[in-house]
């Protein structure tokens, strides 16, 4: 069961929410729609579910066009950010809702509800009211309710967005296990890039209603297709420079640049915090790429180091505690910096 959307567009009172978006979510995988707030990711998900009608474009479920099919008949499961449970019904009745609508025989409903409560590990909570559950439990009930009718696709709209950080991480692992069991084609909306990279086999990065890049998490992280993707997915430092002799000259560093760029064009080099190597500045004369340690902070097993380059730009780096201890760095030390990897983007238009 795959999901494909083609050239979808949607405006709300003149404001563009989704613009000419196309992507395909592979069958049986978790696909993430990743983007900042206002990027149109939730609208895109609602268009797939049939909760919104597109201005243009088509939605295909399993190869069949279903753009005009009403939400009740799409056969999708949907989990909302704020669980949206029926507060006046017990947990069991919430899960049974979709089955009752479809007029399943009572016995079958009972069995299916038991099965689902088992699946979401809430077997003993069936008689509770939603108000008696914790946030994480409520969200699990919402999953069970969405899965009860055996949907062909599971659509998740920031399902962990309203939960606190610890529960969020727990539920992330839980969702991973759940998906291993069900193998259901899943589309997940999130603004949390960590969630996207950890949970999904396929990531679609959205920006201002458009699809910026679509690919595996590794592709997105290692080979960002645009400046936006490079800065939004994963932490990155941005250093500025110019094209000189066909290569990017960023401060004292010279990096390879895409072929055929104009001499003097402005470049933005994106450097991951762990792609920087530093060493104490030694010997006489100014080091090739010098910097001063401005701040150090330990975060669990890794150390964040804030550097001020001689060019005036700042660079945040991160290294494992072991490597850091060997360096014996202190605030104010001069260090030498080497960039192990950088992604260079050349600005279109006039350079200086």
């Amino acid at each position: 069961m795959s999901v494909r959307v083609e050239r979808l567009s949607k405006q709300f009172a003149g404001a563009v929410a989704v613009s000419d978006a196309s992507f395909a979510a592979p069958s049986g995988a978790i696909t993430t729609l990743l983007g900042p707030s206002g990027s149109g990711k939730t609208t895109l998900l609602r268009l797939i579910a049939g909760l919104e009608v597109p201005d243009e474009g088509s939605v295909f479920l399993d190869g069949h066009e279903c753009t005009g099919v009403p939400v009740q008949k799409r056969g999708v499961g949907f989990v909302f950010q704020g669980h949206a449970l029926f507060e006046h019904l017990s947990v069991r009745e919430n899960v049974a809702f979709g089955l009752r609508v479809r007029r399943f025989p009572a016995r079958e409903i009972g069995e299916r509800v038991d099965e689902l409560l088992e699946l979401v590990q809430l077997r003993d909570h069936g008689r509770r009211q939603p108000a008696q559950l914790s946030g994480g439990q409520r969200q699990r009930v919402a999953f069970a309710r969405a899965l009860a009718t055996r949907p062909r696709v599971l659509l998740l709209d920031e399902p962990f967005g309203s939960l606190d950080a610890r529960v969020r991480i727990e539920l992330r692992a839980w969702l991973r296990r759940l998906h291993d069991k069900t193998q259901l084609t899943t589309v997940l909306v999130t603004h949390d890039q960590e969630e996207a990279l950890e949970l999904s086999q396929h990531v679609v990065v959205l920006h201002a209603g458009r699809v910026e890049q679509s690919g595996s998490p590794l592709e997105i992280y290692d080979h960002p297709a645009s400046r936006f993707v490079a800065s939004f997915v994963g932490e990155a430092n941005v250093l500025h420079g110019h094209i000189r002799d066909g290569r990017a000259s960023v401060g004292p560093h010279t990096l390879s640049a895409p072929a055929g760029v104009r001499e003097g064009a402005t470049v933005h080099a994106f450097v991951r915090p762990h792609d920087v190597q530093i060493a104490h500045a030694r010997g006489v004369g100014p080091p090739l790429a010098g910097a001063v340690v401005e701040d150090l902070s330990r975060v669990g097993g890794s150390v964040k180091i804030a550097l001020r380059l001689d060019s005036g730009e700042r660079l945040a780096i991160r290294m494992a505690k072991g490597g850091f201890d060997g360096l014996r760095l202190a605030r104010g030390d001069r260090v030498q910096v080497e960039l192990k990897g950088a992604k260079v983007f050349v600005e279109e238009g006039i350079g200086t």
Partner: protein
Amino acid sequence: MKAADAAVRRLTRRRGILPGFRLTFGFTVLYLSLVVLLPLGALVLRSTQLSWAQFAAAVSGPRALAAYRLSFFASLLGALINLVFGSVLAWVLTRYRFPGKALADALVDLPFALPTAVAGIALTAVYAENGFIGRYLVANGVHVAFAPAGVVVALTFVGLPFVVRTLQPVLLDLDPAMEEAAAVLGAGRLRVLARVIAPAMLPTLLTGFALSFARALGEYGSVVFISGNMPLKTEIVPLLIFTRLEQYDVGGATAIAVVMLAGSFALLLGIHAIGMVGRRRPARSQVVA
């Protein structure tokens, strides 16, 4: 005194976080006593000047019984009509955007603001034999003015805003995702309304109904003109009380008033109790992770 002091302290001890409980609670008791309980108490006291036989005779005459019946059923009917159509109105005013919405919203409040006697005269003018609507109704044998139906019309008019204004904020607060969730699960519009929205609104519907009902029971001004005040036929309890007062039968008036008071109080208490049962959810502290 000491025992009372201890009781107050026991009540207040748990309220450590929000300051001022004693002061505000004391004020609440005083205020309710002065404004509500004192006049009502005086009323009851006054009625005790009658002997039991006098009291029974005053409250159970055929005229009084007819008035109770009319007051109760007309108020009930008015409140029920308001419950249905007030819900529709509140729904339209919260869910949709349309030209003239602000005007419609303001119109709902008019029965609040209008002196009820004016409303009564206006309604009478419309429904009387030569009135705007009345002439067609009477021609077809339907009598509204100077008939029990007129009482219902007047009581519906004064009770309407109570239902609408009670429902509106709660409808606005209803999570639209709940309805969408039901739709994704395959529920059509009617089922969403019956199975998701109505149950969530039930306590509020009850409150709106109770307010409208209570208002109707006590209403006087608008009914006087349209009902015609025929004893045994179109005389409501407040009017009967007034008639007794006019005849300097203060004892009889207070006796009927006491019955009316007890009845209204019992009804309101009953409706509240139903609402409490519907709303009761175990406390958060009972949550087991």
